[in-house]
């Protein structure tokens, strides 16, 4: 794998080094913003597994983000488990939900698939409102468990530096894991299903199962991000399950480049920074998002890294 795409591997290592190095240069608010970027980048990378690599454009990934967040958050709040266990429960919860939804939604394709995933996600969002006495609904829930022991080291999640490094570790593990997966036979198989499902079937593959695997992987990574977000900031709420969350994953991926490993990371960073800069004009935020969605589909459907890949750097995939 490493010998297969050494330049991309080197770039991933450079990104990880920059992430860990950044905290020695920056301090205060930028570290908090970067923590959010790292966590949301994991979400976008997960989304990209289905949308970019396997060609399944979902409009419902808010559901998997929220599944991870609620499974982890509820376990932490009601289950009397430590944060690492709650994190694991969050990941498992997202995997279970994406498996269930995948089995249903993958009976449809393209437009129907987009609408079905959107509707299931909407059901999830409404459920968090309906059972507000447990989930906190719109108001959300704050989580009181704010630290854990890592062997002899006590990690205090109220500290900005600790949060940043936890997020950076999870981000790095996900990035390297997805590198291994996408740059080898599995990634090739996802691309084969995306490019030509009929031919892939006639090469002996069960296309439905490959799609399901890609979808569950995608939802699980998205849920990992949700679990991390909730536990890191000590808050879970219905707003994360809204349609807007699904659109954010789509937007980050489209900006950076669907089907490129680092595209969603770049897209998340750019969009988050852009939105922070627009802080004074918060009212304009939806207009920027809307205009970007239109502009990207019109003129830039491959996103930044996708365009660079097609023009100059074919290894950037």
């Amino acid at each position, binding site marked *: *794998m490493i010998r*297969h795409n050494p330049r991309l591997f080197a770039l991933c290592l450079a990104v990880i080094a920059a992430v860990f190095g950044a905290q020695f240069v920056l301090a205060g608010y930028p570290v908090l913003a970067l923590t959010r970027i790292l966590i949301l980048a994991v979400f976008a990378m997960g989304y990209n597994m289905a949308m970019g690599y396997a060609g399944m454009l979902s409009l419902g990934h808010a559901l998997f983000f929220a599944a991870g967040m609620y499974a982890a958050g509820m376990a932490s709040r009601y289950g009397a488990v430590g944060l690492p266990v709650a994190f694991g429960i969050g990941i498992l919860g997202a995997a279970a939900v994406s498996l269930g939804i995948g089995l249903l939604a993958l009976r449809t394709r393209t437009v129907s698939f987009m609408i079905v995933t959107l509707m299931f996600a909407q059901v999830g969002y409404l459920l968090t409102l309906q059972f507000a006495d447990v989930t906190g609904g719109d108001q959300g829930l704050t989580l009181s468990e704010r630290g854990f022991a890592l062997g002899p080291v006590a990690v205090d999640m109220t500290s900005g530096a600790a949060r940043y490094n936890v997020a950076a570790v999870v981000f790095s593990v996900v990035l390297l894991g997805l590198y291994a997966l996408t740059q*080898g*036979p*599995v990634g*090739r*198989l996802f*691309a*084969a299903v995306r*490019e*030509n499902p*009929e*031919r*892939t*079937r*006639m*090469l*002996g*593959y*069960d*296309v439905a199962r490959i799609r399901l695997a890609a979808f569950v992987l995608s939802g699980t990574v998205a849920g990992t991000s949700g679990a991390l977000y909730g536990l890191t900031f000590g808050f879970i709420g219905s707003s994360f399950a809204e349609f807007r969350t699904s659109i954010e994953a789509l937007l980050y991926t489209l900006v950076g480049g669907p089907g490129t490993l680092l595209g969603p990371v770049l897209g998340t960073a750019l969009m988050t920074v852009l939105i922070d800069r627009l802080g004074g004009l918060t009212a304009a935020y939806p207009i920027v998002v809307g205009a970007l969605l239109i502009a990207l589909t019109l003129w830039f459907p491959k996103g930044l890294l996708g365009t660079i890949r097609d023009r100059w750097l074919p290894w950037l995939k």
Partner: protein
Amino acid sequence: MAEVTLLETRGLTRRFGGLTAVDAVDFRLSRGEVRAIIGPNGAGKSTFVGLLSGLIAPGAGSIAFDGQDITRMPAHRRVRAGIAYTFQITNIYPAMTVLENAAIAAQSRLGTGSEAAIEAAARAALAAVGLSDLETRRAGDLAYGHQRLVEVAMGLALAPKLLILDEPTQGLSDAEIANFIAVIRRVAASATVLLIEHNMDVVMALAGRITVMENGRILAEGTPDQITRDPAVQAAYLGGAS
């Protein structure tokens, strides 16, 4: 010599609306042979191999392959069982490299464990069809004749027991056809080959036996010699075609 049956159909039938495309066909293929199916357009040849490969579900009858009943087996499992199928209209991954095309086929057989083993198998298949020099090219950028060879290489990378080729030489130049015949001769050393073909020169150069179809039924079957001398075949097909 002892002939081992590789594939056998009994009463295989498929109707489309009022049309019986394949009509109660009993067909037997021996291991190691190169068999050509010929017949006029609409004779049911493509439907018949579609039934064998699992692309089309049969209406009635049975198919046995390598000692097991595969009548209800889904297409992708038939490929794993050893039946490779190449499409009549070139069907590859145009956006991927030639090597990646062959690698996807190879990993179907080898699993996703070892990338090195997959690449080696893919390169061997490309070498067998003479495409080694083009392995880093985008498959969609190749000339049509080369794309057909990519398709054959994908079939070979599966290391099939039976390779089904649906009109493989359609649209190829004379030089490409000569090369193609040489490729298939090499393939035939290790696999059984079933091809649908309109070009009688290709059929005569490759086929050990020929099956003639007409109106969804088998009209005649035999060696090339027997077939060319068969009066029914001459009347129905050879007389009109060339």
